[in-house]
């Protein structure tokens, strides 16, 4: 029997379907990446033809295969203290401004997505503990979300390679990690401080309960979205933020090109975006 192949028509069908479900768009340059993973899942699920696999993907009641495939199709490349200047912006500029006008005694809330394997939310936690004196006066909640359930499990485990911790200042590495045979294990205090949740940013039902955040970190995700999905995501964050809340994007991303809802804020460390205060 001939090896299964993904035709141009199959690729088009799949990419439209996947885009509708996740907001992630693959152009033709990603053809090899997509085909390879589709063929892998077809083999693993015993589907010799794309047609039968695609039918299963679309109509499976549990949605389990779509989740497995989504896990394979998402990119999870990150490391501790990546684009660290934004964390300095958080502790030196954003949080002082937030607490200066804070009227209630509730916690400050930070939403990080995509969480990937946890490097970013844990980096934020470390920065708060090490660089922000306000942590002694205010509670901070960190919620970290991702569409990929496997990567969320990894984040909760908190075990990292040499490469992941390569940019982390050595004193922090010594203080918050334990060297094990399997890699660097982050301490239980930090693991216990971040709440990980599965969220599809393109699914309004998924994002609806996420409210009352003071800061959102969404870095290097929207670059994978098309214009409409980016705009929709910006509106999701708008509703998730408190008035006057901030959003931090990746260094190559600009909210001004996505939506006019936010004000541009130029701090010494970074440019971030702010939901207007009421």
């Amino acid at each position: 029997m001939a090896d299964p192949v993904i035709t141009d028509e199959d690729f088009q069908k799949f990419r439209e379907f996947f885009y509708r479900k996740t907001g992630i768009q693959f152009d033709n340059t990603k053809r090899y990446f997509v085909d390879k993973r589709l063929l892998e899942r077809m083999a693993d699920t015993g589907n010799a033809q794309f047609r039968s696999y695609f039918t299963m993907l679309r109509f499976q009641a549990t949605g389990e295969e779509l989740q497995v495939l989504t896990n394979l199709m998402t990119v999870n490349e990150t490391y501790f203290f990546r684009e660290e200047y934004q964390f300095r912006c958080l502790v030196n500029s954003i949080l002082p401004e937030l607490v200066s006008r804070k009227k209630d005694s509730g916690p400050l809330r930070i939403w990080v997505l995509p969480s990937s394997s946890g490097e970013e939310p844990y980096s934020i936690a470390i920065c708060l503990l090490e660089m922000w004196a306000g942590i002694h006066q205010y509670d901070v909640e960190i919620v970290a979300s991702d569409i990929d359930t496997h990567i969320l499990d990894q984040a909760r485990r908190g075990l990292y390679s040499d490469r992941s911790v390569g940019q982390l200042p050595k004193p922090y590495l010594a203080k918050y990690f334990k060297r094990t045979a399997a890699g660097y294990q982050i301490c239980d205090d930090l693991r216990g401080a971040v709440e990980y949740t599965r969220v599809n940013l393109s699914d309004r039902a998924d994002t609806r309960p996420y409210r009352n955040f003071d800061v959102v970190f969404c870095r290097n995700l929207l670059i994978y979205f098309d214009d409409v999905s980016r705009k929709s995501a910006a509106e999701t964050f708008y509703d998730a933020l408190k008035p006057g809340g901030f959003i931090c994007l990746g260094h190559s991303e600009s909210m001004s090109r996505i939506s006019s809802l936010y004000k541009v804020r130029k701090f010494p460390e970074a440019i971030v975006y702010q939901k207007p205060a009421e």
Partner: protein
Amino acid sequence: MALKKPPTAVTTEHSGRQHDRDAAGLLKQLTDSNAEVRRWAARDLADCPGCSEALVEHLKTEADTSVREVILTSLVLLGDNTAVYGLVACMRSEDAALRNEAIEAMKQLPDAVSPIMRGLLADEDSDMRIFAVNILESLKHPSVEQWLSDVIEHDDHVNVCATAVDLLGEVGSRTALEPLLRLKSRFDKEPYIQFAADLAIKRILEG
């Protein structure tokens, strides 16, 4: 004080989110006095086929910028004929902001807009034809160059042709060279057309 895990995975629901989320409930909330409730309703209406007309009607009177922006995104996500024709109607409005918002939204709907593009480019109102060319500015559709070439070949209004020729200089290929030369002949007394067509030809030849 310290880092604390939230008591639940996500935050407490705002009371506004606890209204009915079906189409009828959401349409009612579109008229709520609280902009936040209207914005949430507009956003969730993107999942309710058949609500485009109500969204377009509300867009015409909505004063809050953030609600307007969400209505437009929902119309793009719905992307049906009612949404597109509603946006076309907005393009005819006296309200400049509404016109511009409709144009921006239609740029995001290449599949839905393409079947009516020839009609828009042949509209009896020259302003509408200019707006149609404005849509082509970033409409991701393979016929954009052909539509622009047709405009500069056949449209009698100098401002419509001027708008099209500017864009053709950015997106055109060598196929557009002949239509550009014929445009120069048709408007040989119009200095701007001569200048813009020469510039477009230069850009295309430089690749």
